[in-house]
């Protein structure tokens, strides 16, 4: 490594605040967005495994598929679907935030986290009432 003469700061040292240089992931928005991204990612993955299996029942028989899909149409599962869609919407918007941090500018990562939360609220307001009406009026 090229040694800088004593007393001269490298560009890395100049720009670093108290957090170690080069990480957004320690503390506050940067960390919590990562925690949520990870948890939602895992949850969606396990749902996807089950969801492909239940959909594969269309190849078994209409009766088998209809019997299993009816389980998704109960009030309890209706609430589960709200949680699932909430997880996917967060993961999707925060995923776009990660992409913008990597390819555009990390400076705005905090603002973008609040934009993600705002878009999440708007999307859920559009989805949840309509979905719950479908679930509870049938």
């Amino acid at each position, binding site marked *: *490594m090229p040694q800088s003469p004593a007393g001269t700061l490298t560009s*890395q040292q100049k720009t670093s605040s108290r957090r170690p*240089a*080069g990480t957004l992931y320690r503390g506050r928005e940067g960390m919590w967005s990562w925690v949520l991204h*990870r948890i939602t*990612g*895992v949850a*969606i*993955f396990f749902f*996807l*495994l089950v969801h*492909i*299996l239940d*959909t*594969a029942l*269309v*190849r078994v*028989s*209409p*009766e088998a*598929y*209809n019997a299993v*899909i009816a389980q*998704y*149409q109960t009030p309890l599962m*209706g609430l589960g*679907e709200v949680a699932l*869609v909430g997880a*996917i919407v967060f993961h*999707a918007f925060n*995923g*776009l935030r*990660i*992409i913008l941090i*990597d*390819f555009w500018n990390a400076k705005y990562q905090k603002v973008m986290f609040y934009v993600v939360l705002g878009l999440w609220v708007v999307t859920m307001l559009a*989805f949840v009432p*309509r*979905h719950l009406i*479908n*679930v509870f009026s*049938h």
Partner: protein
Amino acid sequence: MATTLEAPRSPYTRSTRKNGVNWEKWGWLYMRVSGVLLVVLIFGHLFVNLMVGEGVSALNFAFVSGKLADPFWQVWDVAMLWLALIHGGNGMRTLVNDYATAPLTRGILKSAILAAVVVLIVLGTLVVFTFDPCPAGANLADLNPQFCSAL
């Protein structure tokens, strides 16, 4: 003192293998490219299945027949299947790398992820392309009248 310490924050020493493919880099890029595509595919999927009409309460075999008989939705669903499973499987691999320390555990977990991804991609792709909207012997009431009126 024969060992030399690398200066902090210097790049990892790469293995001496020349012209090796940097798989981690391509995996990193794949997560981002597939992510953008998945936003479109999954939001469209959720909108059509949960928001249009009566949403979740309208889902049944007849509804799925209507979609899977259409090449547009076949391509949509298969693209979503491959992209999401590989994205999710690669993401799960990252978690195993982060949290599982014993080599044997890591090997078992990563093999399980790979097996699940491969089996489900094969199963899902076969289902989409071999789907029969009017299976013989089925109860007529369960079928989509648009496709199976001749029965």
